[in-house]
């Protein structure tokens, strides 16, 4: 079947100018959809960030009277009689929804659905994703999920309050905590929409990357970002179904009287929970079953958050170091190893859960070993930096920040991976330090780096570099000030999800540290204003960007900023080399784009000696 691709591109479609609603609202264009996801994730981040600030205020000064907060959140503060002291059930809701929104609706979304949609067609050399309609549908499904989750705050007894991990029986028994009323049901519904949306996205990502790569784009010429998106999509397709299965079973336990997760003998408030026949209503279920299913998703999920940031970091680092990425093949291999191992380590969240100790040992093996590919990645980044010529623009700072957080957060993982030390550290703030540094931090810094780097492809403009650097420094310093001290208080035994730690004598001395963390958190939160101002101002009035403002090599830089309709005006370029051809002395410029054909001398060299490894 013949077609004339050249004639198809650009204006020769025969499309009339699309109405605003089809172009920008119910769009099927990957760039618009990516931006839609991104901006929605930003809004959700504001909500979840606010929740975090409230959590921090409570941990620093638990019995304090916050009169003005009681006015804004009357349901959360005992506002009767002028009291502005937070209610424990409100606190439980805060940490539950902070975790849920951040993990799924912000940090699975912005890097993956946001940047994945923006970049995959551009980096693969495709006009759009494989299934543009499904792509648009996935965004609107996601949005419905967001609305459901946000609505849950306003139902009678409040949003879910059983932790983002929603362990039954706490999440399954309606009387166990107020949030386990309608709030938990809406949580489950919101998650079902989210998982449906993420699945649709995953189908699109994998199909596009496998099927729609342009001529010459062999796997080992794909940039690390593209590898990350591919692996993340595969992880999601394989892992999220376990959580959906668990969610459906939880709905059954909550609403249809089943006992998937609910054991015999439940007594709530000293009253046995009986069925109409006088026997226990629930019989024979296992709370551990939920944990296994949840963490089967939960562990790959944290890599879904992290891998894109690792991909961004590699690409950004190479560009601004003006040097090829060191050890590209082992970087790809390490990503596969991390992705693969992520499926066999989930039980390390359950070392003290009561599961079989032999099973715990099995999980400890994979968990400890996952440090090896992670270390390889870190060393490769460092090696990339050595003898580099680094240009310190904002994206590079974020990439270096990711490296720093990856080291800090990754090393504390080694402590936790050992099942016996985990006895002391499980469910303490040490764990919170670990995952906020490596997972949340790396993902967040990755998103900021990606934003400042690929902003030209989003909006055709540059973000302000000075403001960007200021934002980085405030965020970087504040982030460490917030999360690093959590290691110490965790070792000291400070538990997680504790409304008032100072009920315990052994935790009283730690209050000054909590106060320090809270003040740093307020600074961290306030600093994000710099980002929002920069983002929105630059989107409309930033300096116009050329096609390749960073002198980078990827396919996305071979087209205009932002890319035109169909991504390339005319034929899609073919790829001849890998994306990390920097500093090659044989070329006039210190970078050679992927689309540059091999030179005579290169061809001669290959003929004589075989592939040199530079064009892969």
């Amino acid at each position, binding site marked *: 079947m013949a077609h004339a691709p050249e004639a198809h591109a650009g204006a020769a479609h025969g499309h009339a100018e699309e109405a605003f609603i089809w172009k920008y609202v119910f769009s099927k264009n990957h760039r618009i959809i990516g931006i839609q996801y991104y901006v929605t994730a930003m809004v959700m981040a504001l909500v979840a960030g606010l929740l975090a600030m409230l959590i921090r205020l409570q941990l620093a000064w638990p019995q304090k009277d916050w009169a003005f907060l009681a006015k804004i959140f009357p349901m959360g503060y005992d506002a009767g009689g002028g009291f502005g002291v937070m209610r424990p059930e409100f606190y439980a809701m805060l940490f539950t929804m902070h975790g849920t929104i951040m993990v799924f609706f912000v940090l699975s979304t912005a890097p993956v659905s946001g940047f994945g949609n923006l970049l995959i067609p551009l980096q693969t050399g495709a006009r759009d994703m494989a299934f543009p309609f499904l792509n648009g549908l996935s965004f609107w499904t996601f949005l419905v999920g967001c609305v459901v989750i946000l609505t849950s705050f306003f139902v009678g007894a409040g949003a879910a309050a059983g932790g983002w991990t929603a362990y039954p029986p706490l999440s399954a028994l309606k009387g166990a905590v107020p949030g386990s009323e309608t709030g938990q049901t809406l949580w489950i519904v919101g998650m079902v929409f989210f998982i449906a949306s993420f699945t649709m996205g995953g189908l699109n990502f994998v199909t596009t990357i496998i099927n729609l790569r342009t001529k010459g784009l062999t796997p080992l010429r794909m940039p690390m970002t593209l590898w990350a998106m591919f692996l993340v999509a595969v992880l999601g397709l394989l892992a999220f179904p376990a959580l959906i299965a668990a969610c459906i079973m939880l709905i059954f336990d909550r609403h249809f009287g089943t006992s*998937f997760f609910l054991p015999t003998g439940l007594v709530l408030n000293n009253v046995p929970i009986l069925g109409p026949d006088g026997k226990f209503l629930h019989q024979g279920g296992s709370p551990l079953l939920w944990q296994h299913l949840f963490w089967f998703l939960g562990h790959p999920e944290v890599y879904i958050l992290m891998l894109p940031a690792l991909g961004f970091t590699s690409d950004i680092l190479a560009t601004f170091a003006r040097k090829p990425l060191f050890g590209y093949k082992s970087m790809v291999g390490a990503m596969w190893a991390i992705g693969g191992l992520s499926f066999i380590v989930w039980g390390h969240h359950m070392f003290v859960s009561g599961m079989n100790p032999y099973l715990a040992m099995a999980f400890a093996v994979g968990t400890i070993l996952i440090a090896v590919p992670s270390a390889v990645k870190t060393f490769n980044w460092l090696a990339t930096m050595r003898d580099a010529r680094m240009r310190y623009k904002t994206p590079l700072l974020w990439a270096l920040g990711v490296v720093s957080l990856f080291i800090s957060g990754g090393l504390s993982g080694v402590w936790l991976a050992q099942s016996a030390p985990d006895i002391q550290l499980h469910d303490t703030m040490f764990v919170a330090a670990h995952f906020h540094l490596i997972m949340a931090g790396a993902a967040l810094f990755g998103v900021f780096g990606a934003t400042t780097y690929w902003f030209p492809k989003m909006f055709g403009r540059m973000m302000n570099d000075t403001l960007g650097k200021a934002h980085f420094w405030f965020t970087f310093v504040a982030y460490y000030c917030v999360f690093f001290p959590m290691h110490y208080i965790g070792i000291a035994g400070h538990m997680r999800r504790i409304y008032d730690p100072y009920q315990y004598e052994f935790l009283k001395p730690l209050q000054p540290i909590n106060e320090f963390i809270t003040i740093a958190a307020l600074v961290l939160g306030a600093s994000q204003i710099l980002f929002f101002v920069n983002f929105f101002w630059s989107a409309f009035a930033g300096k116009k960007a050329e096609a390749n403002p960073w002198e980078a090599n990827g396919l996305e830089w071979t087209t205009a900023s932002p890319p035109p309709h169909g991504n390339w005006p005319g034929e899609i370029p073919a790829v001849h080399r890998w994306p990390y051809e920097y500093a090659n002395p044989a070329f006039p410029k210190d970078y050679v784009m992927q689309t540059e054909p091999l030179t005579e001398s290169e061809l001669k060299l290959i003929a004589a000696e075989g592939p040199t490894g530079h064009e892969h």
Partner: protein
Amino acid sequence: MSTEVLRKPRGPGLDRGGPGGDGPGGEGGHGRGEPELFYDPARFGLWLFLGTLTMMFIGFTSAYMVRRLSPDWAPLKPPGLLWANTAVLLLSSGALEAARRRLRGWNVAGVGPWLLTTGVLGVLFLAGQLMAWKVLVARGYFVGSSPHNSFFYLLSGVHGVHLVGGLIWFAVVLVKARRLAYTPGEDGLGMFAIYWHFLAGLWVYLMFLLFVF
């Protein structure tokens, strides 16, 4: 630019000139002598989706297996209707294959009746499932009565929901067939058939898991 991929069913490997057909990813770049993996993206995506569904049922299966080993397991005797329903669904798949074969074999007139049969049997299956639920409830076997009950209602319910999705897809297929939108000699019914047969096979598996194993 957008919905061609869904509207124009394509067989695998039909045209190396553009993997997405006239889909947006297709024109221009890929397929000009590039020896990498190449499948019709829509079909590829469907297989991925079936993989995801399979993973979900593996999750249910593992939950079932663990529960099955408990000492308080009290097996539920399936109403005979369930076996009849299974047969109906398999026949439905058979009818679909007959329709598909006729389309590929240029026998356009023969497609309609077999396609209609597929749908009728599918609806019959669903009705039969609902009836089976009623029979069980009448016998006093509610969803929470025992773990075997719970799993039966859960698994047949989730399967049924996906079958309803399949019936919606079928309605679209039927409308297209009546409009003669499928090209004779090609495998226009292939995508739907993959999903429909998957559901039939899944049901056989679930019956085996629940009542034979």
